[in-house]
């Protein structure tokens, strides 16, 4: 397409060239013809003027001669007077070459030339043979070479003779008779220099041209340049009118020098063509550019149209989705006017969408959105981008339901909030469920409190009888028994009583501890505690028991302090309980190892034994309260609360507890706490020198 347009530009340029060439080919001859016409006009004007002027001059010359003849006729011939008068005439009229006087007998008496008079009677010169023609009153003598009435000595005649030119136009004589009472007294003959009279004047006045001067008989009298023939058809002829005859002046105008040359038009045409073709080229280029832009624009418009169509389709799809969802959807403008409400919302409110659209939200009672609420929602959504609200809605028919409404911001392309999008759903069932759950939770919490109170009160009440029983047992064993000779069987019974009351005492102790831990809502006191220090102290305590039935305890401590944030007493109870358990379930030939390790962020305490182990099925439950692992063949009894208390204390100190065990091989309980931040450890703890790091205790 673009290529076609480029071709059309070329064609336009070519056409412009052709039109210019044709115009030039017409212009060239027209211009030249015009120039010629102008020259011809000029020639006509000048030629006409010249012809009139020359006729006048001839007339004047003839008048002069007639006047001279008339003077002699009246005064008589006087040599001196004639000479003077002739010389005056010669001086006045440069066309006159000489003036002669012939007497009545035809004798050539006197010749007066500009150089002076000459007496012809006494010279031997022959009088010229002159044929006369009369022009007006003056007889014109045309002298030819053989026709000379003038004296032979006359320069003019001589010159004429010497030329021998039959058609020589030069010498013209005018003769005027001198008459007194009709008697001829003589004759004045004047030589008229035709050249001086006509040719010189014509040459000086006519534009550069060739011309010829013909007499009335068609003989050429003069021409310019000399010897020229005027044959050109464009020549113009002008009559020079004398009194009784007429000559013809033929002028052939010279072609004007400034006549147009064909190459002017070639070059001019080319220039004009360039001047025309360049804008055509430029316009063509601009057109092409505009076309390219247009095509780009059209493509973009088409693409945008497609995009818009797909957007419209997408929008319709979304609208259909919004219309079909079960949630109520509503658009509220910033001034609180409902711009849109879907069918689900209208259904939920038992009204029509038209009852909602374009109404103020605060005026729809069922929505339960007061102006203050709307203001708050607008502010919250503007700040946080989201707000959730649950409110009870009362429909126009009086029925109620709970709605959970999510408000989000509707934003324009610039991200400016222009409205609120409210999506609501009926949460009546959920609310009912939540209410039930909350009630149940409250009941449960009350029951828990009652139970905890009961345990607390019961164990508190148990502590005094337990103390009494223990003291009674002590009295029985130390005071009463020695007084009587108890059988072995009786002593066994007393021992059983002693053990069971001790267990009862421990159980009360643990129950009190559990009750106390449960009651402690606050965290354990946060102090820096060195786990190594606690482990060493607790292990030393066990060593002091000096029980030969128990296995040795090995202690492995890190070089420095292993400080955690927590409560010293709680940590002691944890370590003591774990080591006590390990000793209880490990034979004397076995080994209990207490290891404290420290990393940058954690402190780990591991209590490992080589004892009986815990069956895998029991592992998940060992931290439950009152859970006791059945160990056939062992008579070891516990309260079932120890590990539960340990786990609870570890948890309160933000630690973790884990257990791994293999039946018959042993058990390892690992406790990990976050290490206290660097620099918080008390200096005296760091200064204590615990060595060696591995210490075996008997």
């Amino acid at each position, binding site marked *: 397409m673009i290529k076609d347009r480029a071709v059309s530009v070329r064609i336009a340029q070519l056409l412009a060239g052709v039109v210019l060439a044709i115009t030039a080919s017409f212009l060239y001859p027209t211009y030249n013809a015009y120039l010629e016409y102008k020259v011809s006009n000029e020639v006509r004007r000048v030629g006409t003027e010249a012809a009139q002027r020359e006729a006048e001059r001839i007339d004047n010359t003839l008048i002069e001669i007639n006047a001279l003849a008339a003077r002699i006729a009246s005064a008589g011939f006087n040599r001196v007077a004639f000479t003077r008068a002739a010389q005056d005439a010669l001086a006045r009229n440069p066309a006159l070459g000489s003036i002669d006087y012939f007497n009545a007998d035809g004798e050539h008496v006197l010749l007066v030339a500009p150089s002076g008079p000459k007496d012809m009677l006494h010279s031997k010169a022959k009088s010229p043979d002159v044929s006369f023609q009369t022009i007006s009153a003056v007889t014109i003598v045309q002298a030819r070479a053989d026709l000379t009435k003038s004296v032979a000595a006359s320069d003019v005649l001589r010159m004429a003779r010497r030329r021998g030119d039959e058609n020589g136009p030069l010498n013209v004589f005018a003769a005027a008779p001198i008459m007194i009472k009709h008697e001829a007294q003589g004759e004045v003959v004047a030589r008229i220099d035709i050249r001086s009279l006509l040719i010189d004047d014509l040459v000086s006045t006519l534009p550069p041209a060739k011309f010829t001067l013909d007499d009335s008989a068609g003989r050429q009298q003069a021409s310019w340049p000399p010897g020229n023939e005027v044959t050109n058809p464009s020549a113009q002829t002008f009559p020079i009118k004398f009194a009784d005859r007429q000559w013809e002046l033929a002028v052939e105008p010279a072609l004007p020098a400034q006549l147009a040359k064909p190459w002017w038009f070639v070059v001019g045409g080319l220039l004009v063509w360039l001047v025309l073709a360049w804008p055509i080229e430029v316009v063509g280029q601009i057109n092409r550019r505009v076309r390219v832009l247009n095509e780009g624009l059209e493509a973009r418009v088409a693409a945008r149209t497609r995009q818009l169509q797909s957007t419209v389709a997408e929008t319709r799809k979304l609208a259909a989705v919004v219309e079909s969802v079960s949630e109520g959807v509503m658009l509220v403008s910033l001034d609180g006017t409902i711009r849109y409400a879907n069918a689900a919302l209208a259904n939920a409110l038992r009204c029509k969408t038209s009852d909602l659209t374009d109404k103020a939200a605060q005026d729809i009672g069922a929505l339960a959105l007061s102006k203050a609420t709307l203001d708050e929602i607008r502010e919250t959504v503007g700040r946080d981008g989201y707000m959730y609200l649950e409110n009870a809605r009362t429909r126009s028919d009086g029925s109620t339901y709970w709605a959970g409404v999510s408000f989000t911001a509707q934003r324009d392309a610039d991200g400016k909030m222009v409205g609120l999008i409210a999506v609501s759903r009926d949460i009546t069932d959920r609310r009912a469920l939540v209410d039930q759950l909350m009630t149940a939770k409250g009941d449960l919490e009350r029951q828990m409190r009652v139970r905890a109170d009961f345990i607390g009160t019961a164990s508190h009440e148990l502590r*005094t009888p337990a103390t*009494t029983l223990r003291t009674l047992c002590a009295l029985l064993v130390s005071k009463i028994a020695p007084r009587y000779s108890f059988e072995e069987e009786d002593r066994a019974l007393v021992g059983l009583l002693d053990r069971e009351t001790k267990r009862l005492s421990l159980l009360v102790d643990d129950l009190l501890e559990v009750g106390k831990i449960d009651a402690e809502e606050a965290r354990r006191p946060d102090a820096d505690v060195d786990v190594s220090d606690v482990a060493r102290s607790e292990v030393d305590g066990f060593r002091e028991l000096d029980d030969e039935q128990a296995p040795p305890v090995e202690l492995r401590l890190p070089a420095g302090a292993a400080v955690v944030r927590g409560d010293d007493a709680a940590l002691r109870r944890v370590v003591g309980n774990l080591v006590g358990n390990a000793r209880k379930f490990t034979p004397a030939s076995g080994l209990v190892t207490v290891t404290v390790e420290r990393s940058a962020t954690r402190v780990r305490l591991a209590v490992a034994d080589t004892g009986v182990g815990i069956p895998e099925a029991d592992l998940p439950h060992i931290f439950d309260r009152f859970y006791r692992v059945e160990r056939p063949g062992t008579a070891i009894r516990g309260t079932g609360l120890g590990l539960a208390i340990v786990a609870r204390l570890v948890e309160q100190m933000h630690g973790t507890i884990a257990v791994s065990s293999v039946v018959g091989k042993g058990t390892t309980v690992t406790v990990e706490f976050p290490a206290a931040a660097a620099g918080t450890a008390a200096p005296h703890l760091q200064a204590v020198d615990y060595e060696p790091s591995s210490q075996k205790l008997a």
Partner: protein
Amino acid sequence: MKQILLVDDEPVLRSVLRQFLEFSGYEVVEAGDGTGALALARRQRPDIVLTDLLMPQKDGLDFCRELRTDPDLFDVPVLFVTARNADVAQREEMERVGNGFVVKPFEPDHLLRTIESLLA
């Protein structure tokens, strides 16, 4: 023979403890509350006082404080007997005003060791 003033509102425990302490070689005088105990102490001037913390009318702490203001009795060691769930503030007060405490239920041997160490 060292004399112990035993104060407890529970007569059975008081009786059993008295017998146990007497068997262990101490002379024991007993009172059921703080008011009676204070009068008894002024009369007998015991070597050591063993008192329950929580009692009707005058509790162990108030009794101990009054004991400390008496010019004849201010230096008598006082050992509290208490429940484990006594709070931290109470424990600190017992250690500040008295000379120590044992927690019910306690082992009788432990009680004897503690008394011996206070009398030493």
